[in-house]
């Protein structure tokens, strides 16, 4: 058996699945985005061309969702990557009890998003939540987190950082284990300082892992529904209607399936652009994806 055949055999099942379950729906999404689906369920979809996209461009809640999602992306994903890296380094450093600590840290990721949303809603509740209780103990006034800005934004970013930073940390920790100790040892013997080691050895080795973690976090944040929904319901007003929430509303609450498909396609485009940019940023020169 040649290497090429071996390769093909190994990727065949995955390819089949993607073709069956991935491509068909994508084509349907293209079709749906150019039609409108009347309220009467038995009526046929009507051709709308680019109409759904035009409607979206005039839809204040859609435009708002783009802006706030972008903000959450930048704030949350940056925090997750930076803090996740710090956590991974600390985990790599500490040997005793590392297993227990990793398991404990992963509990936030093991909590269903709806529960995370509800739990943080309870924590940030203006009247009965411990966050305000702690603030008042420190002499600061209570904050109406979930119904003011930027309180609602802070609440959402906090919940996201809480839930996903351990995820990032474990990926990066896995990445740290791929660095051969001989390389680190050689650098130490050559007198390299810690900062130098970090910049020129650790981070380059971690590039693919930052790539994966970052992209997954970006995709996850854009898709996000339960956490912001149960935390703020999109409020105050429409200030925290993230894209995941608005997609859900379009598709289900408004039954505007044409608009939802159009928005979904827009996200494919935007995510591809972000992914390309991000890959270029993290890959640097010479490293292919």
């Amino acid at each position: 058996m040649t290497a090429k055949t071996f390769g093909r055999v190994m990727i065949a099942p995955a390819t089949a699945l993607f073709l069956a379950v991935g491509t068909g729906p994508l084509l349907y999404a293209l079709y749906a985005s150019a039609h409108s689906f009347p309220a009467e369920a038995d009526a046929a979809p009507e051709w709308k061309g680019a109409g759904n996209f035009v409607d979206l461009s005039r839809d204040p809640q859609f435009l708002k969702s783009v802006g706030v999602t972008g903000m959450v992306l930048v704030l949350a994903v940056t925090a997750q990557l930076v803090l996740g890296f710090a956590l991974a380094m600390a985990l790599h450093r500490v040997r005793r009890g590392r297993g227990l600590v990793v398991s404990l840290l992963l509990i936030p990721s093991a909590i269903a998003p709806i529960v995370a949303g509800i739990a943080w809603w309870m924590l940030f509740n203006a009247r009965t939540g411990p966050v305000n209780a702690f603030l008042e103990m420190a002499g600061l006034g209570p904050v109406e987190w979930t119904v003011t800005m930027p309180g609602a934004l802070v609440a959402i970013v906090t919940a996201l950082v809480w839930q996903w930073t351990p995820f990032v940390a474990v990926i990066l920790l896995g990445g740290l284990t791929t660095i051969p100790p001989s390389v680190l040892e050689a650098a130490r013997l050559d007198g390299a300082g810690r900062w130098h080691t970090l910049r020129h050895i650790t981070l380059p080795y971690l590039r693919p892992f930052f790539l994966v973690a970052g992209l997954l976090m970006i995709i996850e944040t854009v898709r996000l529904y339960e956490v912001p929904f149960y935390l703020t319901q999109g409020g105050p007003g429409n200030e925290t209607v993230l894209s995941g929430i608005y997609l859900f509303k379009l598709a289900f609450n408004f039954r505007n399936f044409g608009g939802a498909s159009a928005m979904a396609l827009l996200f494919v485009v935007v995510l591809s652009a972000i992914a390309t940019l991000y890959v270029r940023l993290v890959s640097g020169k010479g490293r292919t994806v």
Partner: protein
Amino acid sequence: MKAKGSWAAAGVLAFAVAFALFPVYWIVLTAFRPRGEIFSHPVKLLPSEFTLDNLRYVWFGSETSQPVLPFLGTSVIIAGVSTLLTTALGVACAYAMGRHRAGGRAFSMWILSQRFLPAIALIVPLFILFRKFSLFDTYTGLILLYTTLNLPMAVWLMLGFVRSLPGDLEEAALIDGASYFGAFFRIALPLLRPGIAVTAIFVFLFSWNEFLFAYQLAGDEVATITVYLPRLRSAIAELYGEIAAASLLSVIPGAAVAWVMQRYLVGGLTLGGGREL
């Protein structure tokens, strides 16, 4: 200097664990509090009254909630089986792509882009597809779907680990006459254990916590825990004690998987290969 670094690291970890667990503490508190205590003002930061009522309501069912165990069981089956499938297919795919450039560069981008289309756009066509092949409200349907959904992430996670593994040991085996499959199974796979562990943990968690498709494409006969929970927090039902109790029960499988997997992650050989031995 090394000792000081360890203390700093320990400090970071202590803070991280405290931050990670405080909301969990709050969930535990809520689970074992009587209804009237859950929303107190001033806030009761420490446990006051203790009750097993909420746990009883979700375990045995009550007038206002169904027993949670069947839902947990369904989730275990679906998440467990799809994790096994996804990890197996993902490792195979990533290995072929990383070692043998199977499919070329376009393939890897195509795989990742599978996750770019928000799930919601898939609902209607998947619904039609599922109805057509009688997959609606079945274990098979959800398992296949989750496998497909999580495969891109699995492949991408494993790719990093595969590429970081120097291929010399496998090359040596091939020169000695091993087949490609043999080199893969007997040499590469054991060394890829950390990557497999990471992948398995996250594929499991993603499947476990998935809501949209579990609700839209199933929910009557095949109902997962993520479908159970919103029923406790809808317009009139604000059963926070029950939600908290059910959540505690539902964290156990995920935490168990994480506990099992992390041993491969943090212990054992590093991927530097056998040179250090």
